[in-house]
């Protein structure tokens, strides 16, 4: 059902963790809905030098979280904002039909983290 890539990312997620003193933090979801994604960003010279996440959620939530952090890391803030849901899904080899419910949550969390960074800046 899930692509090989999703299973790979799900079982070996990169960038799991918290960034202490992050420049921005974004959180999406609630335990009632069954998904909580938090993305932390560290910004240096307008570049996302570090992006980390903590995710309570299903296979899609976890695999999109790790994929979003990997795609964003090293990009400028503006570049990162151009990452689309489609980019994430493509990088994961596609999502099974009926499973796109939470596919955008990780991206939303990244956007919120960047917003948080800009608000602070």
């Amino acid at each position, binding site marked *: 059902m*899930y692509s090989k890539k999703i*299973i790979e990312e*799900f*079982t070996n*997620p990169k960038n*799991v963790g*918290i960034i202490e003193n992050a420049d921005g933090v974004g*959180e999406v979801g609630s*335990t*009632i*809905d*069954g*998904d*909580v*994604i*938090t993305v932390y960003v560290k910004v240096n010279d307008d570049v996302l030098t570090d992006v980390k996440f*903590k*995710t*309570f*959620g*299903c*296979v899609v*939530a*976890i695999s999109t979280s790790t994929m979003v952090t990997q795609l964003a890391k090293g990009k400028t803030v503006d570049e990162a904002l151009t990452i689309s849901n489609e980019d994430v899904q493509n990088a994961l080899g596609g999502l099974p039909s*009926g499973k796109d*419910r*939470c596919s955008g949550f990780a991206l939303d969390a990244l956007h919120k983290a960047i917003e948080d960074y800009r608000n602070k800046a």
Partner: protein
Amino acid sequence: MMDIMKRIYMDHSATTPVDPLVVDAMLPYFSERFGNSSSLHSFGQEADEALSLARAQVADSIGAQAEEVIFTSGGTESDNIAIQGVISRDSGKKQHIITSVIEHPAVLSTCDFMKGIGHDITYVPVSSEGIVNVDDIEKAIRDDTVLISVMHANNEIGTIQPIEEIAKIAKDNDVYLHTDAVQSVGKIPVDVNKLGVDMLSISSHKLHGPKGVGALYVREGTLLKPVTFGGGHESGLRPGTENIPGIVGFAKASSIAKERLAIDSSQMGRLRDSIIKKVFDTIDDVRLNGHATKRLPNNANLSFRYVEGESMLMLLDIAGIAISTGSACSSRSRHASHVLDSIGLDPDYVHGSIRISLGRDNTMEEVDYLAGTLRETVSKLRQISSPAKC
């Protein structure tokens, strides 16, 4: 050590492997004794004899008379015939059914439909341990109540309902009582007279029989109308050429289940208790859903804080262990299971629930492997999730 190439199946409430003895019993009926049981010639008579024998076997396994067993295509159809058969779908007369909030969708959706067309349904709640309160049922009875439908054992949390006591109320008030025994047959004793029910649903594929066949027990004298129409098979209650190989297999599986009941249930219970003990000994923030003792011997429904059910399921699947989150039918949707909702489970736990349902072929070695893998799985997922505010 565990041979990791061998997959471990612990999702027997979803479905079970067909017993090889059952397959052997079915095989002659596909290509040799393949007649239509309505045919008068020798092929038909062979089929008809097989059908009669199978009916007697299934009846015997639940303490019923052969004439009281009608064969269906499965548990869902049995539930539908029981409910739709009693209530007057077409008469325009408003009637009342009492059921519980934790029924299987085969009962709940049928009741919901009846409600939609103008009938009244009382959905009685359950305790935090998942048991119906008999008083609630008694209080719900009205003059226009025609049916009480409460499941014998729940498919998600395995709780066993007080059917005998409900039967007394039903009898006193002259109301039919149906019970969905799809999950209980083969795990605890099921006797229609001890239970005191008027109708009882069984599904073959939950007891090591083939899929696509089931039965509805209908106590003599119970007035039922059919849901589908045709050639008048099964006492006019369920038309269509009888699925003889399926029915023969189902009957064989019923007989085996009855024979093995004592041994199987104590064996499954021992393994299940061992799972619970190991999980509680090695994992924090875990809960056992359902009732401590009034539960099927093969069911352990556990909730883990800070982890999500599907993620657990997938990691366990990758490790070669098959379990489920909630009931098989609902695991594709992201809603919390209606059963876990109805026992008022803490939202922090509700999405982190898995159902382990054992079968008679599971072993202690498999249980050990499960317990170890589960510990690693929960720990891994908690590293990913916590301390995000969960």
